[in-house]
């Protein structure tokens, strides 16, 4: 029974998609309820897995490995370790929240929207659970199509541009990744002994003398994977799709985009680049000169660049989008450090950023639904009109700017602590991001909520119950994880230690 749980979780949304497609399109309420149900089941399963996950070991649990495309030694191999179970929970949590967030504001093609959303959820869940490189890639790409349509059909005025930009960038990255995957596969052994199995490959890649362990080979393959993931994260200079995609995407999709899709990049980086290619990683993170600092440098650039870009925005959503770039920079920086603090911090930051950015995008959506614009300077004084909304926004902002006591702090702090061990100057420079982060959030807070109420919005309705329901779980998570980060860290620190062992 336990064996099937994970697969059940992955494929229930897919089943849901079929069910939704079979429902008559006029039954909108039914479709919405069905979608909600089909996203709640994975959530329940994810919570079950999260609770029953054995934190004391780095071994994969709940794994299933059945031959799939036997001719090419591809298995349907899924399983969880501390990293994936955390992100699975995040994904499963955001699922129903996004369905709720889409409850009222999808005006056309609700059925298709929900169906695509469910497909997207399957892709994301599968990605985090996949332990076969091929399967991993398939799930990685599976998120592409629904995302394209969700942005392209239900997005804002420039949705076509944003959608195709997103698609092209990601596809560009992933084709390079595909080359790397094939190269890894072909070098994994004799024609009969080749494998796509990630744990096996990790072992092989650290076996001295094996073709996969060759530093030169690892470097190129590392780069292939890296670019694939970098587009997704996104790491400067592959980031320009992100603001466009976010600005045009409907609220729930922005939430998924920032909350989960970006994590796919960093998760993949940890899972593949770091664990499988320690020699390659060595070249880019461990050494003198620009090459040895390159990854940390990218993290730094992301932080500073994203933060300053965010500061320069006047579109609320774009601001949040750029802030995502900045915050993902901390993840990169932490990962570049390669020590327990850095990696744990990075993983924690992945989860927390997922929660917090989801909140931020939901909040932007709430405002947009009411005012039908997102121009920061067009608001003012909403604090007196919408106190609860203001309160939750303040919470989210504070969490995002890394206020201790809220979850955003821990990831940033640990990442920085870890990074400082390796890259002192870069880390110190990266702290600029913390100040600028505070600056743009506070400035936004001031322009939107403080000051005198803009007379245009005297009748703006307060946040409603459904919206509060979408925000409260996330808010509770930020507070609880802000106080007790070990709840999350305990899930994965053993896995991370294992990873650190592999790297060094």
């Amino acid at each position, binding site marked *: 029974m336990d064996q099937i749980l994970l697969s059940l979780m992955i494929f229930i949304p897919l089943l849901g998609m079929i069910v939704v497609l079979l429902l008559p399109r006029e039954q909108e309420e039914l479709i919405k309820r069905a979608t909600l149900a089909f996203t709640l089941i994975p959530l329940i399963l994810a919570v079950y897995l999260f609770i029953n996950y054995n934190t004391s070991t780095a071994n994969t649990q709940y794994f299933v490995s059945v*031959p*799939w*495309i*036997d*001719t*090419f030694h591809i298995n349907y191999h899924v399983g969880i370790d501390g990293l994936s179970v955390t992100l699975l929970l995040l994904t499963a949590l955001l699922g129903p929240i996004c369905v709720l967030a889409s409850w009222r504001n999808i005006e056309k*093609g609700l059925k*298709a929207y929900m169906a695509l959303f469910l497909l997207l959820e399957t892709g994301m869940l599968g990605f985090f659970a996949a332990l076969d490189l*091929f399967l991993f*890639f*398939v*799930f990685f*790409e*599976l998120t*592409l*199509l629904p995302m*394209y*349509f969700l942005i*392209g*059909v239900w997005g804002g005025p420039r*949705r*076509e541009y944003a*959608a*195709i930009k997103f*698609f*092209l960038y990601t*596809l*560009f990255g992933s*084709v*390079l990744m*595909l*080359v790397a995957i*094939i*190269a890894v*596969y*072909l070098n994994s052994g004799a024609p009969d002994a080749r494998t796509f199995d990630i744990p096996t490959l990790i072992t092989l890649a650290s076996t001295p003398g094996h073709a996969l362990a060759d530093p030169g080979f690892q470097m190129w393959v590392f780069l292939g994977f890296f670019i694939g993931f970098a587009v997704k994260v996104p790491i400067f200079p592959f980031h320009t799709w992100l603001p466009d995609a976010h600005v045009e995407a409907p609220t729930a999709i922005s939430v998924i985009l920032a909350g989960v899709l970006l994590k796919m990049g960093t998760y993949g980086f940890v899972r593949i680049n770091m664990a499988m290619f320690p020699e390659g990683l060595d070249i880019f993170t461990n050494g003198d000169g620009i090459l040895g600092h390159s990854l940390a440098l990218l993290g730094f650039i992301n932080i500073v660049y994203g933060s300053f870009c965010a500061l320069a925005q006047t579109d609320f959503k774009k601001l949040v989008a750029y802030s995502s770039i900045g915050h993902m920079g901390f993840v990169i920086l932490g990962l570049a450090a390669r020590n327990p603090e850095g990696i744990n911090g990075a993983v924690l930051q992945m989860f927390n950023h997922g929660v917090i950015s989801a909140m931020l995008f939901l909040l932007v959506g709430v405002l947009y639904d009411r005012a039908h614009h997102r121009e920061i300077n067009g608001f003012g004084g909403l604090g007196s009109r919408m106190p609860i909304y203001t309160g939750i926004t303040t919470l989210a902002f504070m969490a995002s700017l890394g206020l201790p006591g809220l979850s955003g702090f821990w990831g940033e702090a640990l990442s920085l602590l870890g990074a400082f061990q390796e890259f002192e100057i870069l880390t110190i420079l990266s702290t600029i991001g913390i100040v600028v982060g505070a600056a743009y959030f506070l400035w936004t807070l001031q322009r939107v909520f403080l000051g005198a109420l803009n007379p245009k919005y005297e009748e703006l309705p307060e946040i409603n119950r459904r919206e509060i329901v979408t925000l409260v779980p996330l808010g509770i998570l930020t507070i609880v994880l802000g106080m007790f980060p070990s709840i999350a860290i305990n899930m994965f620190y053993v896995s991370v230690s294992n990873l650190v062992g592999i790297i060094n």
Partner: protein
Amino acid sequence: MEPIKNIESLAYFTPEILLVVFAAAVIILDLLVKDQESDWVAYLSLIGLGCSLIAIFITNSLVNTNEPISLFLGMIRLDEFAVFFKILLLLATAATILFSIRSEELDVRLKGEYYALLLAITFGMFLMASSTNLLMIFISLETVSLTSYILAGFLTHSPRSSEAAFKYITYGAVASGTMLFGLSLIFGMAGTGDITQISSQIASVLASGGVSALGVLIAITFILAGIGYKIASAPFHMWSPDVYEGAPIPITAFLSVASKAAGFALFLRFFRTGFDTPEILQSIDWGLLLAIVSALTMTVGNLAALPQRNVKRLLAYSSIAHGGYLLMGAVLLTSEGLSAIVFYLIVYLFMNLGAFYVVVLIANESGSEMIESYRGLSSRAPLVAGAMAIFLFSLTGIPPFAGFFGKWLLFNAVISKGLYWLAFIGLLNSVVSLYYYARIIKAMYLESAEDTDTFSFTKSTFALLSVFVVPTIFIGFLNIFYSLSAKITLQ
């Protein structure tokens, strides 16, 4: 194994014979029956294809799969490779016939001839897939070509169709003439027309210095012109966009799938059997030649497709590009490459025919092949739009659709030989290709039509559509197709 003599061979030749018999029957019966409106000739042709298919299975069961047999004193060969292509071609023809029944552009009065020609061309393609003699190769190629010319020009009241036929035959005649010249050179160098013996002959004369590498190179290049024109590889591809655009849509679909597949069958057998020896490879790196041709083909196809506004023409360029992808598998003629091609052809059959079927449907409804007529299709005919999107994404090579798995196998084959540059070009090309495929998707999903009437299609339309959609989704997930394609080899 000794080649089987003529009379004894006939038993193994029943599938082909059945095709000819049915072709004749269709013509004769068409003359006798006057009911022009009914589609019974089409169904009769389908029955013929079915009979042929059964015959294929029966004859195949007579053969020990490990030991292919030569028929007609070495003229053709019956092996799994041939059987695979025959089945593939039968399926493509069957689909074409079904399209033709539904297509409104075809002339109702010439049905008998039309279907007979389809059966005849299938017959020719069968031979292309199994020929092992230079003469047979040429004759089968000519049979297919000649029939293709006629089919492309079948719409005699349409200038486009006539122009297509004219260009096709001019181009084809020159290409096949060139090829024949190349064949004659090979014949002169090897002293035999049997391609199973050519490789050893050429290798020995090359080794003894009796033949200059330039001679072999010229011969190969000339032959490549003939085969390359069939599979529309650059720089021999230029006929195809014009012909595809001008020909009736079912024929375009047929040419882009069946003709290409048959061309590949011929190509693979010819080069794999005739030139795949180390000695030849040493003096002429035709692997590199093919790699360059492959890269060029997919690049040209994809780039030229970018600005197209006619979906049929766009798909024509896209099929050129796919020819380039397929050629990647042929570059080094490894067994991996071969099975990748085989797998990709299966996938390509479904997704490309599916896409063309949608083009047929839209052309029927709107009378246009332009991308503008696809606007708002997602609301006018959601299922058709969904199917088209699946075909296009599959053509792009995006998981979870079968096209991705096919491409993956091809890249796998290329990278396994260290041709990373080719793989990169191929992958960048898939990224580029996304752009024009997405244009259609954009039109269908992101734009809205001025005319918002919904299209009404019959149930059988959807049934046929699902015949293409379902494999396009599922082939990649089923191991059987991989093991099947891995089994197809060429000795």
